[in-house]
């Protein structure tokens, strides 16, 4: 069997038409030579015309053959040579895809089990002189022996990570090329997800890719976010369902093991799961789908901060409308009376919503208090006019008539006339206008009470410390956290706050020096692993280069270590071309010499 390493060069075969074309184009009217002894010439030509025609045809064929051979040599043909079962020492790297998607069950066993079996088959073909490498889903190049490779394969499980196949193959090729052995091969055993391919420079060397196994239907959770991030104690989770499947699946929300909501969804849906937290504090939420052929992407972990109604107290006079609104919320049980959040005309010790004073002369004292609290924001001049509130919160679009100019830095939650209107730094939230009808139309609108609830229950308290990560990913944790609680024990967080996320999915508590939980680390799978569509040969070659050979199991068995038994025919063809050129020269030069006396 013959293949070509540079098949594009075969386009050069059109050059084989050059000699016949030259022959045809070169047929012009020759000059006339007066020659009296033409009877001798006639006799000669009559005697040898047939021989000359044959000779010229032979020359034409030789020239065409020489061009064809040179073009074929440029295409670098290789031929498989059957030379027994042994092979010369070879550097062999095996890429085994144990990413999350390899956990899909096909024909009663996981794809990974099938790939591992193929890997063992490959290892069995290796010999003592071979050098072996193993590349798993983390893309790391591992030098192994046959025994350690078998041990690794025996204990291999699907990891909740995404395999970057391009990176893994390039790492494998690099390892093989750096081997002191002259011969090298890379065998890729993967489900060949199209989403796993990353482009890069074409790989050089022999890369055998086992063709993709059949794929099952699959649904997975692509993402899930808590809304709001702090449940009081009710809340909701918005989940996105990914994968590809014709049917629908049940979607459940479990909080600390208790199912609090359920719905059904299909691929591409976004669903809202509403419920009430079964407890308070930091809880572990799981969005779970019904089990399908790929279990690894059927769950999504999220941390939920649950508590009772926010205790709100008014420290100084902040206006009649605010006090009336808080009373309505208290009556409805949405907030409680207390001092978790305080409303005042200057910052207090805890979470504070600063409502500016009516008299501009008092802003100096407020600014000094802000500076003392370490807040960068300052109240400036009083502006009068008419503007609209801009922001993603109730009350957006309502008019503002009077406001202080706010200057400083921090989170800007709403603007008026392009200037900050509602800002927050740490536990201090500032309004640029008093919530009275002479300052803004908001208090006399229906959106005022919802605005007030969000202001005291969510904005003023701030977001809980939730960090999202994928398994093994480097993350930076909140400064207050000093350790992360894992099932197998606690892990100290360095001063920089940067750690590698655990290699498993889950919700992991972040604890401060006092032992209080200050946030959670959510570790979830990569949603791209849920899309099991395989890459075709064109995409594979586009990503990895034309040298990649996609082979069946039978072909893999035949071609394995074939590099050692494959002969590149370039030299032979060039030699043959040289011989033909020499023959052509001899025939052209001495073609009539054979008839000389």
């Amino acid at each position, binding site marked *: 069997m013959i293949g070509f390493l540079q098949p594009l060069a075969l386009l050069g075969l059109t050059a084989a038409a050059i000699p016949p074309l030259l022959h045809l184009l070169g047929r012009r009217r*020759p*000059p*006339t*030579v*007066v*020659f*009296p*002894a*033409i*009877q*001798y*010439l*006639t*006799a*000669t*030509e009559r*005697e*040898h015309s047939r021989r*000359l025609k044959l*000779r010229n045809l032979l020359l034409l064929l030789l020239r065409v053959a020489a061009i064809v051979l040179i073009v074929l040599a440029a295409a670098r043909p290789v031929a498989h040579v059957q030379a027994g079962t042994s092979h010369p020492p070879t550097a062999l790297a095996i890429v085994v895809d144990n990413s999350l998607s390899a956990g899909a069950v096909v024909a009663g066993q996981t794809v990974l089990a099938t790939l591992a079996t193929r890997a063992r088959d490959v290892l069995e073909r290796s010999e003592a002189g071979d050098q072996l490498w193993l590349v798993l889903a983390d893309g790391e190049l591992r030098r192994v022996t046959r025994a350690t490779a078998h041990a690794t394969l025996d204990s291999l499980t699907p990891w909740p990570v995404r395999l970057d196949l391009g990176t893994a193959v390039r790492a494998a090729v690099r390892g093989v090329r750096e081997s002191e052995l002259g011969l090298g091969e890379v065998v890729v055993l993967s489900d060949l997800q199209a989403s796993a391919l990353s482009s890069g420079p074409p790989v050089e060397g022999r890369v055998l890719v086992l063709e993709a196994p059949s794929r099952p239907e699959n649904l997975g959770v692509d993402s899930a976010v808590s809304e709001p991030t702090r449940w009081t104690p009710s809340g909701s989770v918005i989940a996105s369902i990914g994968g590809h499947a014709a049917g629908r699946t049940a979607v459940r929300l479990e909080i600390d093991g208790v199912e609090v909501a359920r719905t059904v969804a299909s691929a591409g849906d976004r669903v809202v799961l509403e419920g009430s937290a079964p407890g308070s504090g930091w809880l572990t939420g799981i969005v779970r789908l019904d089990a399908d052929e790929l279990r690894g992407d059927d769950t999504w972990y999220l941390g939920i901060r649950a508590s009772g109604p926010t205790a709100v107290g008014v420290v100084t006079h902040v206006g009649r409308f605010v006090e009336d609104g808080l009373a309505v919320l208290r009556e409805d049980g949405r907030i409680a009376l207390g001092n978790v959040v305080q409303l005042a005309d200057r910052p207090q010790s805890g979470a504070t919503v600063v409502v500016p004073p009516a008299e501009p002369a008092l802003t100096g004292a407020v600014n000094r208090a802000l500076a003392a609290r370490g807040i960068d924001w300052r109240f400036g001049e009083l502006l009068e006019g008419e503007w609209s509130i801009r922001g993603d919160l109730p009350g957006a679009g309502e008019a503002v008539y009077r406001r202080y100019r706010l200057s400083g830095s921090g989170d800007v939650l709403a603007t008026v006339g392009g200037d900050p209107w509602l800002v927050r730094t740490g536990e201090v939230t500032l309004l640029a206008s008093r919530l009275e009808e002479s300052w803004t139309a908001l208090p006399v609108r229906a959106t005022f009470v919802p605005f007030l609830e969000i202001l005291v229950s969510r904005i003023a308290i701030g977001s809980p410390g939730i960090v999202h990560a994928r398994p093994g990913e480097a993350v930076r944790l909140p400064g207050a956290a000093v350790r992360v609680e894992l099932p197998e024990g606690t892990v100290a967080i360095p001063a920089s706050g940067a750690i590698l996320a655990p290699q498993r999915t889950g919700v992991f508590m972040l604890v401060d020096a006092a032992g209080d939980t200050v946030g959670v680390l959510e570790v979830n799978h990569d949603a791209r692993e849920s899309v099991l569509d395989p890459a075709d040969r064109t995409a594979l070659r586009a990503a990895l280069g034309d040298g990649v050979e996609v082979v069946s199991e039978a072909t893999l068995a035949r071609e394995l270590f074939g590099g050692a038994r494959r002969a590149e025919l370039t030299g032979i063809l060039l030699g043959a071309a040289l011989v033909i050129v020499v023959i052509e020269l001899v025939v052209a030069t001495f*073609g*009539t*010499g054979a*008839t*000389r*006396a």
Partner: protein
Amino acid sequence: MAQRLDLLDPYEVAQLGDLELVARGVVEGFLTGLHRSPFKGFSVEFAEHRPYRPGDELRYLDWKIMGRSDRLFVKQFEEETNLRAMIVLDVSRSMDWTGHERRLTKLEYAKRLVAALSLVLLKQRDATGLIGFDDEVRTVVRANARYRHWWELLAAVSALRPGRGTVAEPALRRVTDLLRRRGLVVFVSDLLLDRELVMLALQFLRHRGHQVMVFHLMDPGERSLEGPPEARFEDPETGTGFVARPRELRGVYERTVRDTVLAWRARCRAGGIDYHHVLTDVPFGRVLRQAANRRSRLG
């Protein structure tokens, strides 16, 4: 030391003067050192032997009898007359060709050779005539032994212009009308004609008792095939031709020419005809000497 014209390059000799001057120069050089007439004895017919007497010329001594009987006899001849020679010159179109600008055409070479040969014959009082032909007889000059007849021959030769095709048989038949007695026929041609027909005519002359001498003229450019990589080779007499590549045919062509010369030589020898292959770059004196030597051996 003066140059002998008979040994110079024919082209250079031709540059020295007209036909007469060249012929005289060549013959003068040719005859230098010869002790007897070079073509003597052609028409002397043997009658009987008589015993040798002191004073007889030794060249008439019959060596064969002396070898057999150890006795000396000399040959006596029935009639000793001057030779009658007829030169038959081919003036066809093919004769008007040279392969190199510094070589004489075959016709120009032949004219000078004929002039020299006729002068040699007339110098030994042999009657000499001329027939010029192409595809028919163009010129006839009857044989005459007077010395001044040479100028008549020269004028006829000079007046000959290249003709058309080549048909030799009428000219050779005409010889039989002009040579009633046995004599010498000198046939000068490039022999680019039908060999069988010509040989038939020459054989007929031989049967009539004539000595026949053939000068086969050939330009050196005809011995090998030269020219552009591909050319249409055209016959100057018929205008026919065909396309050929000299490089491809050269070897075979040379062998064909060689075989042709050998064939002419063999056929002539078999018929008792004196054959001379003459290249037009060979000095005239060498050609004459070679012919004279051959006649001497035959005689």
